[in-house]
């Protein structure tokens, strides 16, 4: 029996069962002298046998729950729909609608103010900023997004600025900005605004805002 290639597993089994004869023991010993793997096998068995047994956990609920078939698990009980519950639900929905409207109005107002301040600031400094800002490939790719933002800026300015004429024709301006502009997470990595490109994007955005505002109202 080759020491390396074959291991006397039957003899080890007999040793484990306590049925090893003297001749077999001698045979096993001869193998063990040259085989570290079998020595390690037997030594580890002896080591593990000394470990204290681990007690059965006394928390069977978790595993028994896992045993239950999915269909037998009761769905959460529906609460009875009383008139009072219905009224309460309607009240909650009405409150949610009011809160959503207020939030939207606030957001629009904030957006318009920002666009207006940019526009006013831009009226004085836009040419120099626009000339100094070299268009990046990322900024060029975001053309649709810039147009949408410009449209929002124009709409906000028209709605709030007393300086702007109310007769401006906005029918050609895509005011459906949220639907047109892709969210940043959906843009290609090159189109994602990183810190250095942000300034360039802002400058080119201002340039376009000015152009859009100019075409709308001749600022």
């Amino acid at each position, binding site marked *: 029996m080759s020491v390396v290639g074959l291991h006397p*597993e039957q003899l080890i089994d007999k040793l484990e069962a306590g049925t090893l004869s003297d001749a077999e023991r001698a045979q096993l*010993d001869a193998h063990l002298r040259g085989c*570290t*793997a079998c020595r*390690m096998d037997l030594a580890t068995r002896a080591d593990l046998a000394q470990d204290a047994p681990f007690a059965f956990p006394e*928390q069977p609920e978790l595993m028994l729950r896992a045993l239950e078939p999915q269909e037998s698990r009761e769905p959460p009980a529906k609460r009875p729909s009383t008139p009072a519950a219905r009224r309460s639900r309607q009240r909650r929905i009405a409150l949610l609608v009011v809160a959503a409207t207020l939030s939207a109005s606030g957001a629009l107002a904030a957006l318009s103010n920002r666009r207006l301040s940019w526009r006013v600031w831009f009226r004085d400094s836009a040419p120099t900023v626009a000339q100094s800002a070299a268009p990046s490939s990322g900024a060029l790719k975001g053309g649709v997004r810039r147009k949408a933002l410009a449209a929002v800026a124009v709409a906000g300015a028209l709605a709030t600025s007393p300086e702007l004429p109310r007769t401006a024709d906005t029918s050609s301006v895509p005011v459906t900005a949220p639907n047109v502009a892709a969210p940043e997470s959906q843009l290609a990595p090159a189109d994602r605004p990183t810190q250095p490109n942000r300034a360039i994007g802002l400058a080119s955005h201002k340039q376009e805002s000015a152009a859009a505002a100019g075409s709308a109202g001749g600022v």
Partner: protein
Amino acid sequence: MATVESSEAIEATDAAAALTALARRAGAGDPIAARHFLRTVWPKIGRVVVGVLGTRHPELEDVVQQTLIAVSQALPAFRGDCHPTGYASRIALHVALRARRKAATRRARSETLARYSLSEPELAHDEELGRERRKRVMRDLLAELPEEQSDALGLRVLLGWSLEEVALASGVPLNTVRSRVRLAKEALRRRLESEPELLAELEFEP
């Protein structure tokens, strides 16, 4: 002698048949049968889990629960082709080895954490240190071996099962088990060659 052996074999067969019936009832959703089955196979399962993870592993309790859940969830798929205890033990071995591999990955990520959570305890005696080292080497090897080989070697070393019992538990021919054990031992031998300190402790003492 032959009569005693045959009667023992009959008893073992009857016990296996009874346990198989119990496993099937448990798999069909009988919670009492499930509890009874888990209690019956628990000594082997517990030995496998503790054997793979060690008694001081910080996640031992969690892995025990995971093992019991895994066995419970696998019972509906039990066809009775192998011994129910072997079936449960193999599941326990896989769950425990997976937990050990995960712990090893985390240990690699954070050596500092490993130093406090998974380090070998301070041992009073060299003998105990040697025991822990041997167990660690065997556990690491079982976690690294291909699944079939770690099944075969793990059931033999952790549970002391014979080749026939491993074959019965795994549902594969005896020679396949023999081959898997041989390959696993070759891997063990190679591993030992890289651990001279451990190799020195394994001096043969007839």
